[in-house]
């Protein structure tokens, strides 16, 4: 550890970046030493990603100075940042999915095998294999990215930075897509890289990770850098206070429901294909009772999205049955699913859950418009009044019902979806990653809406990659792995659930 080295690897002074209507970074000071793991902690929207995008040359700051190893720099493009030794693993991987691992690594490279005009795939593959072995990040260099699991893809991202000889490595929410075990392995790699003298900037909003892996922590809130502290001197409580600015009351379920009576949602031996034509859901059987929150944990890409879509009528099942209140629902038919009382908050808010450039009022009637009409004609006044009511009740911050939907912030977008799905009073409510990318206040609100729905008697199916969220809300946990669902026993610990998420069986 070289936390107190005289010349910091990264030094940012008074960095400001404005976007239309928002100051993403407001006079941020940040410093990281060689050989240090420095955590950037903050809520979603606090400005962590903007700061790292400035450091990687993707954005240019409006004000401020940046120095690397004591030398002032002003990156006009990502290329210059890479050449200066800054590498980044983005939260949403920047990989070309149809390329091989090796091709992704040499992309844009000006030093290694890719600097020649002519490209020799097998020579590059050999080089990549050696690099993977050296850092115990094994991947097949000839594999295409789309064939790899999410964890493997992350390894490719890290290898890419190492291949580019990055001395400063930024990891943006790296554990969001990993099982607890995979995350532990990642932490080992991170420490190894720091011991080699690299600087690792670890972006996260999860306290326990920050405590486990970092030497120092800088806390960002609302675009401002509030403080930098040594991790050893900090406690989770002190960091939380800095991050949120007040104490948060984490929503937890009071008086969990006992499954009783007739199940509201019954799924029987359901099979469905994924987008690439492979089988994504393999014989899922599941029941959810009224007032119950059943939570499905799992790493993304194990068939959760396909399962939710099959139940919500967006994806035809190849086999099996979905019943609501005892009546079968035709699986390829979203209209029938809505009429049967299934509400669905999809993972992809803007684009699936909402029609981006249409007015908010239309999005609030996206499913119910068929009933808000006289003959073929719409009752526009009724729709407008309903929209105004829902905007008020659900506290959607907007200019009015006629505003274009995609102008709203992430939290307000989700409120529009929830307002629509809730006001139809569904018997079954499916929520897929409902809090992804939202700030703490919005997360709390979404959680309380979900619990309220359960209290009012809906059968709630929550699908999430966030174990904390699942543990806070569930009545019952299920784990999805490679298209199949297994139930989790009551007494199982977090690490045992994690083992299931990786395909193992505890005990």
């Amino acid at each position: 550890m070289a936390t107190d080295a005289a010349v910091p690897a990264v030094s940012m002074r008074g960095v400001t970046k404005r976007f239309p209507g928002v100051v993403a970074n407001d006079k941020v000071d940040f410093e990281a030493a060689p050989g240090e793991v420095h955590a950037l902690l903050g809520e979603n929207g606090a400005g962590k990603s903007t700061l790292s995008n400035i450091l990687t040359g993707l954005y240019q700051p409006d004000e401020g100075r940046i120095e690397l190893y004591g030398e002032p720099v002003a990156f006009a493009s990502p290329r210059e940042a890479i050449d200066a030794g800054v590498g980044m693993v983005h939260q949403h991987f920047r990989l070309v999915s149809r390329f091989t691992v090796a091709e992704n690594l040499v992309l844009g490279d000006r030093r290694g095998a890719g600097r020649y005009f002519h490209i020799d795939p097998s020579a590059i593959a050999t080089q990549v294999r050696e690099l993977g072995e050296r850092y115990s990040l094994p991947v097949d260099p000839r594999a295409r990215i789309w064939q790899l699991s999410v964890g493997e893809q992350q390894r490719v991202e890290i290898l890419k930075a190492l291949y580019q000889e990055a001395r400063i490595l930024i990891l943006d929410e790296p554990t969001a897509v990993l099982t607890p075990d995979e995350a532990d392995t990642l932490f080992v790699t991170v420490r190894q890289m720091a011991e080699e003298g690299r600087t690792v900037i670890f972006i996260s909003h999860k306290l326990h990770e920050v405590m486990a892996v970092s030497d120092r922590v800088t806390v960002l809130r609302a675009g401002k850098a509030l403080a930098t502290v040594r991790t050893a001197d900090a406690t989770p409580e002190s960091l939380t206070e800095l991050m949120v600015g007040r104490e948060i009351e984490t929503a937890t379920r009071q008086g969990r429901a006992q499954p009783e009576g007739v199940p509201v949602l019954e799924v029987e031996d359901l099979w469905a294909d994924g987008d690439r034509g492979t089988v994504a859901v393999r014989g899922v059987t599941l029941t959810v009772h009224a007032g119950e929150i059943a939570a499905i944990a799992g790493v993304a890409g194990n068939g959760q999205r396909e399962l939710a879509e099959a139940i919500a009528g967006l994806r035809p099942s190849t086999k099996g049955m979905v019943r609501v209140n005892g009546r079968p629902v035709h699986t390829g038919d979203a209209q029938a699913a809505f009429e049967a009382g299934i509400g669905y908050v999809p993972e992809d808010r803007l684009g699936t859950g909402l029609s981006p450039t249409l007015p908010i009022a239309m999005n609030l009637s996206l499913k119910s418009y068929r009933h808000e009409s006289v003959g073929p004609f719409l009752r526009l006044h009724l729709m407008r009044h309903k929209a105004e009511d829902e905007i008020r009740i659900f506290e959607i911050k907007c200019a009015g019902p006629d505003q274009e939907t995609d102008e709203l912030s992430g939290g307000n977008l989700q409120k529009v979806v929830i307002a629509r799905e809730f006001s139809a009073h569904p018997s079954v409510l499916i929520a897929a990653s409902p809090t992804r990318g939202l700030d703490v206040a919005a997360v709390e609100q979404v959680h309380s809406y979900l619990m309220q729905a359960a209290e009012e008697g809906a059968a709630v199916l929550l699908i999430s990659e966030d174990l904390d969220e699942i543990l806070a809300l569930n009545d019952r946990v299920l784990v999805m792995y490679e298209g199949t669902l297994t139930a989790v026993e009551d007494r199982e610990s977090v690490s045992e659930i994690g083992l299931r998420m990786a395909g193992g069986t505890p005990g």
Partner: protein
Amino acid sequence: MRVTFERRLSQPWWLSVVVPVGAVILAFVIAGILFLATGIDPLSTYRELFNAAFFQTGSLSQTLITATPLAFTGLAAAAAFRMKLYNIGAEGQMYMGAIFGSAAGLYLGSHVSSSAFAIAGMIVAGIAGGAAWALISGVLKAFFSTSEILTSLLLNYVAGLILTYLIFESESYWRQTKGFNATVFPTGKQLPKVAQWPTWTINLQGGIVVPFGAIVAVIVAVILWLLYSRTRFGFGAQVLGDSERAARYSGVRVRRKILAVMGLSGAIAGIGGASQVGDFAHALDGDPNGLQKLGYGYTGIVVAALARYNPFATLLVAFLLGGLQNAGNTLQGPNFPAGLVGVLQGIILFCALGCELLVRYRVRIHRKAAAKGTAAPAPAPKAAS
């Protein structure tokens, strides 16, 4: 200096008026510079153009003759493009409407005595012909996800070949086979008087002749506007036009909608074809250098795009571009080569497309040049242990 575009947080209403008008003015300036470069005096050209289009005696009657088909093909394109279905087959669908419409006119004209009945029959037949032709692309799109752009375009050529075939290469029902002229140059059979569409005359500019088709076009525009903004069908179609995933999510039957919108678009173009026969030609025009040379279907796309797919704006733009096209025909000669108006239309469309960005984005110019990044020399990482 660096130029970036920033998303506007709100769009002032006046932008959607100022920007298109500004785009048209810009287009005339750019075209003017081009004219100057080729030795044409832009100001006098524009003056001549506008006189011939709108101001000299009889010009408005002529303009309506070109504006009417453009209104139909423009509305056809607007109906489909707005739903992100790129039907560029209005040309061929119009030919099919003309073929079906004239068949109905020829038959009904000699079998019924009621003009209203004959004309209604022609319109229905035109709708059927245009819709059927468009539905070929619609079915292929809905069931095989074949690009409707390519199929509808290629079908234009096929429709043109059929049109020519019916008059020039066969002894079809549509062809005039009796009489001296028929042996010299093949033509279509003349429509009986009963089936010819009426006109009205407004007492202005020495009498402006308004064809029946122009009135039908206005009615179609009103229906289209009602359909898309006031009905359940239109609601679903608007969602589909914005995001297909959101449409599936909201329960819109996507295939059915694609078929309906393509059929509707083709039907409108088909009425345009029937109007060509009933209003103006009074016979099926199979000459490859006749109707097929005018390219109404393609200009209709320009019309719709300039009108940003709004039905009423489409009517207005059709009238303006119809005027330009009419003026181009009138003035055509050594000083005013054919194609000049097409060039002008193209430039107008380019400017409109380019300026559309300004409605949604704010242009920001950064004066300070970004300093070149300098790679800092730094200690290499220690070798892996």
